């Protein structure tokens, strides 16, 4: 679900079809990582939660990989197929049975929590069941949607054990689903599936401290300021082929200004040679042109699409020709420049980004140089009865890049007489506002990232399934309610042949764009500038993998 922005996106499972790729980001000046030292991660904002049942955004998912393990997880970024799902705490991937409504996993031997207690099937069950607690389970929703839990179940602290998960013995876990779901392995790689010792973590126990199952444990935690990790001696590398755990310590420094972070990385003074951060600011790109800096840059396309949602319940957006006219009128290259130029993003004319499987290239509303076809737009508007244009209100987040993008749109649409006024909404209430159909305006700029990039099953359905329009927390901003689209979604989701499913998703992508419920704008790139002494910073799908990062020379910095 991870909504938008410049957040590092989530996980991936690539069934090898469609157009994965673009520039593979692995230009990391030679040398490999060795054990020892401390890696510094600099960030602007705090992690939402240390508790994986609560946290659910790209930034914190990367952190969870260092301290938690799940039955199944995404492969390491330097694996031959970085998007594959690989077993982590389980011995192998799940075995489906009974018409695909049960899945069985077997835990490895010798896996322990940082307390020294072994991780058993009951702990897996307990950890997952925490997701039903109304206070705690505000993170990834998939398990709650898929598992056959009794109605009114409120988690282990209030309602006891979860019957939908069976534990016939200490090392076997059986899941009972409501309906078949071929991609269940991917669902178990989500942070809401992290095991915890039975009975722990009630109330806000896991706000300030954690029970680690991964290679690291929490050393110190000052909210808003620093998080330090140290090695977890109970983690056994022999049971974990995914994480290399090179550094002895990790230090997350929080609350630093974005521009300052870039300055520090460029300067590389002292311990900053061991530092890394998220994507650089647009202003910094001009400074990364010297050979030494260029060498260190790691660039990769993300799996996230930035788009304008057009609310089809508001006039005149209910008229297909008007929506198509807008698609023609928008000057996407100007929006691209406002986003930071062509280093920073790539124009998109499709819904599914190039780096997600199920993508094919097409452009239903072409124009020269992507600057928009004003004549065609004007023609469509006249046909629809609006030769002089009309007024629209666009919801945007109070963030400089989005504001620039919105202003660029104002200029584009002015050319066909559409008067776009901007409704700037606070970052904290933005998603709440646009997700409430009674509060949203005519259009909104937002983004969407898939939870796993192996298919478009977490991309198209949430955004375009007409049956999913909810009164609060709505993702189908266009409020598209098209029976043919809904039927297609059901059909493709049931396909067990994942490759065929991906081809079907591409076809659906094009079919939806014929209805023009959104205007796809661009897909952003992630541009990282890791410190000169870091190795393992590769990002084939836009996100870094902390599990394989380490220092080249632990004595430096």
């Amino acid at each position, binding site marked *: 679900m991870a909504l938008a922005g410049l957040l590092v996106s989530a996980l991936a499972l690539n069934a090898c079809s469609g157009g994965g790729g673009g520039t593979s980001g692995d230009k990391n000046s030679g040398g490999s990582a060795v054990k020892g030292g401390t890696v510094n991660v600099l960030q602007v904002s705090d992690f939402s939660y240390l508790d994986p049942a609560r946290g659910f955004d790209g930034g914190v998912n990367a952190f969870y990989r260092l301290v938690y393990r799940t039955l199944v997880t995404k492969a390491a970024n330097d694996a031959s197929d970085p998007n594959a799902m690989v077993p982590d705490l389980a011995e192998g991937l799940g075995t489906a049975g009974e018409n695909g409504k049960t899945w069985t996993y077997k835990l490895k031997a010798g896996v322990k929590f940082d307390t020294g207690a072994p991780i058993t099937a009951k702990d897996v069950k307990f950890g997952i069941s925490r997701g039903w607690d109304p206070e705690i389970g505000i993170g990834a929703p998939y398990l709650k949607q898929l598992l056959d839990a009794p109605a009114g179940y409120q988690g282990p602290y209030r309602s006891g054990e979860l019957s939908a998960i069976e534990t016939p013995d200490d090392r076997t876990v059986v899941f009972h689903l409501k309906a078949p779901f071929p991609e269940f392995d991917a669902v178990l790689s989500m942070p809401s599936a992290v095991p915890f010792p039975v009975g722990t973590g009630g109330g806000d126990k896991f706000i300030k401290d954690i029970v680690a199952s991964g290679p690291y444990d929490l050393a110190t935690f000052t909210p808003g300021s620093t998080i330090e990790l140290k090695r977890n001696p109970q983690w056994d590398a022999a049971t974990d082929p995914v994480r290399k755990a090179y550094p002895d310590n990790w230090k997350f420094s929080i609350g630093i200004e974005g521009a300052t972070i870039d300055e520090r990385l460029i300067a590389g003074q002292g311990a900053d040679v061991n530092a890394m951060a998220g994507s650089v600011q647009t202003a910094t790109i001009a400074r990364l042109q010297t050979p030494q800096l260029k060498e260190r840059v790691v660039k990769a396309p993300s799996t996230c699409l930035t788009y304008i949602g057009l609310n089809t319940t508001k006039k005149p957006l209910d008229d297909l020709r008007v929506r198509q006219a807008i698609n023609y009128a928008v000057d996407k290259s100007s929006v691209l420049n406002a986003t930071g130029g062509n280093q920073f993003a790539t124009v998109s004319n499709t819904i599914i980004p190039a780096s997600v499987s199920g993508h094919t290239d097409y452009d239903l509303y072409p124009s020269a140089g992507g600057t928009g076809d004003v004549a065609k737009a004007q023609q469509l508007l006249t046909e629809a009865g609006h030769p002089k244009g009309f007024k629209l209100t666009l919801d945007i987040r109070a963030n*400089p890049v989005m504001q620039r993008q919105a202003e660029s749109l104002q200029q584009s649409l002015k050319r066909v007489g559409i008067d776009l006024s901007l409704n700037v909404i606070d970052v904290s209430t933005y998603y709440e506002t646009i997700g409430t159909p009674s509060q949203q305006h005519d259009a909104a700029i937002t983004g969407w990232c898939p939870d796993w990039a192996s298919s478009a099953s977490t991309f198209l359905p949430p955004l375009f399934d007409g049956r999913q329009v909810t009164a609060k927390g709505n993702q189908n901003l266009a409020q598209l309610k098209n029976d043919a689209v809904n039927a297609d979604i059901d059909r493709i989701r049931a396909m067990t042949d994942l490759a065929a499913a991906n081809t079907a998703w591409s076809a659906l992508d094009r079919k939806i764009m014929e209805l023009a419920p959104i205007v796809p704008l661009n897909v952003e790139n992630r541009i990282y500038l890791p410190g000169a002494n870091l190795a393992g910073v590769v990002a084939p799908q836009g996100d870094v993998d902390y599990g394989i990062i380490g220092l080249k020379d632990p004595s430096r910095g």
Partner: protein
Amino acid sequence: MTISSTPLEAAAADPVVATTDPRRSVVRVLLRDRAAVACLAYIGLVVAMAVFAPLIVRISGWDPYEFDQSSIDPNLGSIPIGSWGGISAEHWLGVEPGSGRDVFARIVYGARSSMLIALSATLLTTVLGVVFGLLAGYFGGRADTLISRVMEFLMAFPALIFMIAMLSALPADDRQFLLVAVISVFGWPYLARIVRAQTLSLKQREFVEAARASGASRGQVVFREVLPNLRSTILVMVTMAVPGYIGTEAGLSFLGVGLVPPTPSWGQMIASSVSWYSVVPTYFLVPGVFLALLVLSFMVLGDHVRAAVDPGGRS
């Protein structure tokens, strides 16, 4: 701190009372003072920019909202093409990174926003401050207690935090009015305090007693005897308040709760220049210098006005 009370305290530390020959014109004295003239000239320039903004941008050729794709480089993160932030015959003060908007046009329109808000706030706070200060100082007793308590209460508030919180919670339309209102609510007590102190001391003077003895009503005494003597204090207060409010509006815009884009504002331009200051320093310096010079001009002018009004005192 942006509503810095300390310059006003400094002004209060030596209360100014007009003791001089009424034929001496403050204006004439000022006009002979080179520094004051320079300040007035700059202020006049900014006011002219604000008033004639639409005309000026028609001459310079770009309006403040127009994007110019040809002036920015898409391969380098959309920075302005050319050195000094893209200064050229087309764009006199360069362009804005990311959009290519003309900086000169945005400075001109920004002057409009800043001056409008600062002057409105000054007007409002002066009216409120003088009225309440007079009432409290002259009538004393319960009116004084009540007004003083209100003033104390408002001054105890951490104004900046409160203003930001209120502004960010309210919708963004009519933001200019909200800004003026919010700044004024927290600004008037500082002026009222000074006026009150002045009124208290003036109340004891002979000419007031004389006026009362000759049968003038209280209202007449306040408005015809006391108020004119406050003229110079008010003048000094105004010249000190305006730069304070300009700074406050810029600060609020810097923090993102000021005027909503795409309306240009100097504070907001500085805010967006933060990430660019090492690559395009002119984008940061141009609004910064304009702002600093404006505040400086008002302050120097204020000093010279004080000196002109009370030449026997400190220079």
